Every structure is written in structure tokens, then in C-alpha cells.
């Protein structure tokens, strides 16, 4: 099963895509993904229920978050009430160690995203802060990467022995599915996604879009 693990909707301040249009786009353009995870900036969307939309289009639509730490941005999968109580998702000065510990304690997984990007990526902060404890997975393919950002991410992952995921980081409809992550089994819920990530049986993909 292939999921785009990093997408934003109009719930994010810089997101311009409606979720139903993501679904429509994936089907119309035959994008080779089976679903996506909405990782809104600095928040978890507790309100939206995308299950009818997912059923209509035969897609898996899950929810996560993208939070901000001293090492840059971090995707969080498996968000639940306990995790939301553990730290303030809106805080732009979170400690990565705190996010990772809270995820471990509450059945979630933290994944630094676009780690090769200046300022908001983890690799840029290793010299200043050292290797953070507890990171096991990073996003090695990001659909919004420019220049050598993905190579920097992959190099860091290779050096540190991190596993890699892929996500489009889509903010507009037509960018969904540019990068994704392939899992060996089916994933229908946030819990199953966490188990699959903890199971370490996945690989990052770049997906060529139709011209």
C-alpha cells in the first residue's frame, strides 16, 4: 500500500487544497497512491471526518500533524488525546526530545520532515545541537524539495541509520502524491500507520506525475 504521508489542506494557513479535490485529482490522474495523511501545520484537526470521502473514492485518508521544534519541522503520526495533552501543538519552539518522548509514551511516531531544508530541516541544526536522541525515521523524499535538499536528507539518514519516508508536502491539489511511502500491508487507520512505521517495513518513493 502506498500512502503520501505529508499533505496540507485549507486547514493549514498556507494550504490551498480542499480534501475532496485531492481525492478527485488522485482518481482522475490515476496517481499511484492509495491514500494520504493530512499533516496540518501546528495543529491536529480534531473536527473533520473524512471517512465518507475516503469510502467514496476508495482511498485511505488519515490525519496527523506537522509541529515545529528547535531542529525544524516534525511530522507526528498517531495523534491522540493524550499526545495533545502532552505538548502544545501550536508552540513553535517545541523541543524535539520532548516531542519524541511524548510520542513514545502515547503510541505515536515523530518523523522530522524535509530535514535537508535550510532553517526548518533537521540536518541544518546537527552542528549546533548534536544528534538528537530517539529519531529513527526521517522524511527523505519531500515533494517541495529544492536543489540538493533530498540528497542532504538521504545522506543524513544513511549516516545515522535512519529509515526514510516520502511525502508530497502538497499545499495545492495538483501536488498530491509527488512523493509517498510504500508499506507491505494495508493501512486503514492511524493506529495501523503507527504499527507499520514501528514495524520498519516501508520505503520512500518518488512518483512521476503524468505530463
Amino acid at each position, binding site marked *: 500500500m502506498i500512502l503520501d504521508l505529508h499533505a496540507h489542506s485549507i486547514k493549514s494557513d498556507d494550504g490551498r*487544497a480542499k480534501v475532496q*479535490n485531492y481525492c*478527485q485529482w488522485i482518481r482522475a490522474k490515476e496517481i499511484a497512491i492509495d491514500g494520504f495523511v493530512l499533516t496540518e501545520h501546528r495543529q491536529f484537526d480534531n473536527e473533520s471526518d473524512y471517512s465518507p470521502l475516503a469510502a467514496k473514492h476508495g482511498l485511505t485518508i488519515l490525519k496527523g500533524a506537522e509541529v515545529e521544534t528547535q531542529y525544524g519541522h516534525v511530522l507526528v503520526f498517531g495523534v491522540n488525546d493524550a499526545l495533545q495533552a502532552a505538548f502544545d501543538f501550536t508552540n513553535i519552539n517545541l523541543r524535539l526530545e520532548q516531542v519524541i518522548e511524548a510520542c513514545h509514551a502515547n503510541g505515536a511516531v515523530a518523523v522530522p520532515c524535509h530535514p535537508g531544508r535550510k532553517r526548518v530541516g533537521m540536518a541544518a541544526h546537527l552542528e549546533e545541537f548534536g544528534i538528537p536522541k530517539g529519531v529513527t525515521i526521517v522524511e527523505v523524499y519531500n515533494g517541495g524539495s529544492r536543489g540538493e535538499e533530498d540528497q542532504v536528507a538521504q545522506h543524513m539518514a544513511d549516516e545515522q541509520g535512519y529509515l526514510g519516508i516520502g511525502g508530497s508536502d502538497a499545499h*495545492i491539489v*495538483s501536488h498530491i502524491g509527488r512523493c509517498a511511502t510504500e508499506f507491505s500491508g494495508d493501512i486503514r487507520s492511524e493506529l495501523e500507520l503507527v504499527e507499520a512505521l514501528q514495524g520498519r517495513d516501508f520505503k520512500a518513493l518518488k512518483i512521476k506525475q503524468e505530463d
Partner: protein
Amino acid sequence: MSINHLSEVEFGVELPTFQPDTSLANVKKFAIAAGWNSPRFTDHEAARKEGLPGALIPGIMSQGFLSAMIHNWAPGAEIRLVDTIFRAPCVVDERYHINGVVTDIDEESGEVEIDLTVTNDAQETRVFGTAKVMIAN
């Protein structure tokens, strides 16, 4: 193909891409017309002294390129919104591509939503956004 009626618009269709004139002379002409005649946009050396990679194409000019692309595709389209986010600078005298693709069609109101991007030769997105346009039936 020029679009004249809403019924001709298809979900997912790409608007004809074009490469805008990003020459210093054209950007200067634009900057004067817009009242944005700042060295940041019209003088590479001065822009570099500000820490920029060179003279920048004003964001409003990128919006103008995107708007022109829409009219080239659908001459009668009435633009109701152009909403752009400037992700990375566009530099004068460099080559860019102005792209659009239809991502939503409201048959009742006649409103069409278009994803907009300005990309470079490496296919990196420098500007992205959306437009809402009305196309008559």
C-alpha cells in the same frame, strides 16, 4: 485550444504553459508602470548588496504572469481571485515557467478553480497558489 464556455473546461486539464519575459528591461518596464521602481527589482548589484540572489521579479509581476496565462487560455474568463504564496525568490534574467491546472469546477455557479505555479527549469516550485475564475456557459 481557447476556452469560451464552461462546458469546455475539464477537471485536471493543464492550461498552456508559457515562459514569461523576465529580462531586466521588461521587469523595469513593469516596475515603473506599477510604481515599484526599487533597485531590489531593477538592479542586480544593488539587490545582491541586500543579501538577495540578484534583482527579484516582484511577486505582483508573477501574479500578472499567472493572470495572463489564464486569459491566454480562456480569454473571457473573469478572474475573481488570485492567491499566491511566494515560496522562493524568482530572479530577473532567469527562466521560469508559468503553469496552471484545473482542480475544481462548479457547474452551477460557473466558478473554476485553478492551481497555479511558477517553476524553474529544475521544476522547483518558486510560487504557488490558486485562482478562482468565472467562465460563462
